[in-house]
């Protein structure tokens, strides 16, 4: 039999915390996007684990939808980054302070 679910959940929690720290720490917008992907993967791992524990296919379906939404999010997000780069020639979040009051 496989490893117990607690190990998977612990690993997912650590991965999620890593992604959250990355979003808070990094200043490159592209790397921040990658850290968001880390968090999404942690959530996916949790979904699959609970899907196995509960014997329910719903968790796997949800992972499928998360994948789709992640793809859409990355497409739009990178489009925004490219559009910003046209104007500011920078992908650093600190330089994007035009909307300061």
């Amino acid at each position, binding site marked *: 039999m496989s490893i117990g679910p607690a*190990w998977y959940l612990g690993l997912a*929690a650590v991965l999620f915390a890593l992604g959250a720290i990355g979003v808070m720490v990094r200043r490159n917008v592209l790397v921040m*996007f990658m850290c968001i*992907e880390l968090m999404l993967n942690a959530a996916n791992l949790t979904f699959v684990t609970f899907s196995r524990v509960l*014997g329910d296919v719903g968790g*796997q379906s949800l992972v499928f939808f998360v994948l789709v939404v*992640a793809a859409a999010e990355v497409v739009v997000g990178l489009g925004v980054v490219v559009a910003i780069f046209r104007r500011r020639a920078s992908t650093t979040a600190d330089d994007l302070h035009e909307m300061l009051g």
Partner: protein
Amino acid sequence: MNALVAATIPDAVTFAVCAVVVLSGGIGVVTSRNPVHAALSLVMTLFGVAVLFIEQHAYFLAAVQVIVYAGAIVVLFLFVIMFLGVDREEDLRAEPLRGQRPLALVLGAISLAGVLALSATANWVTGAHKVAGGLTAGHHTDTFLLGKSIFTTYLWAFEITAALLVIAVVGAVVLARRPSSTRDEGSPTPATERDGGPVPAGEPAAAPNEPAAVPNEPAAAPGSHEKVEVAR
């Protein structure tokens, strides 16, 4: 701990190796100075998670994870990184916002501790089993069950994701399209303005898109490396 003992040796070894791969990849994403290295570390994490999916008998999702995430999303990241030419090393020691990093570490540790405490103390296997259809029903594969679930129970959500993808594609095209020649402020901003330096007087304000950045370049020659970045 009981569960680990009950597991077979190959399962335990697989999980341990994948956990190391996933976490080192994640640390690589967070700490890499070069965005390209961060993207490659992300690939490592995604493969580790895919193997963990296989370990939990989610074979279809593992394949989709590799194809969609590692094959499409990361390639999109790499494409944008290299297209924008931002694949230079970033100085991670500079800390423009004072106290940001310790605070971020503290917040991350708090959230991790919260999640772990929650999963350790709460009764986390709750709810009814097999609400959306059993995962081990009969001798069907997970792909069959997942497809049946998506095309029956979650059909409406599936249709909505189709609309979402179309909207995302249209939005990306609109965002990435170069503005037409009627614009005057949508032109590629020369790097001199960003640095606060004087914009050359002879800047062709309504010049066609592509050459607009080029004539400025010699005028902005002795500048910092943002200009070099634009030139790339």
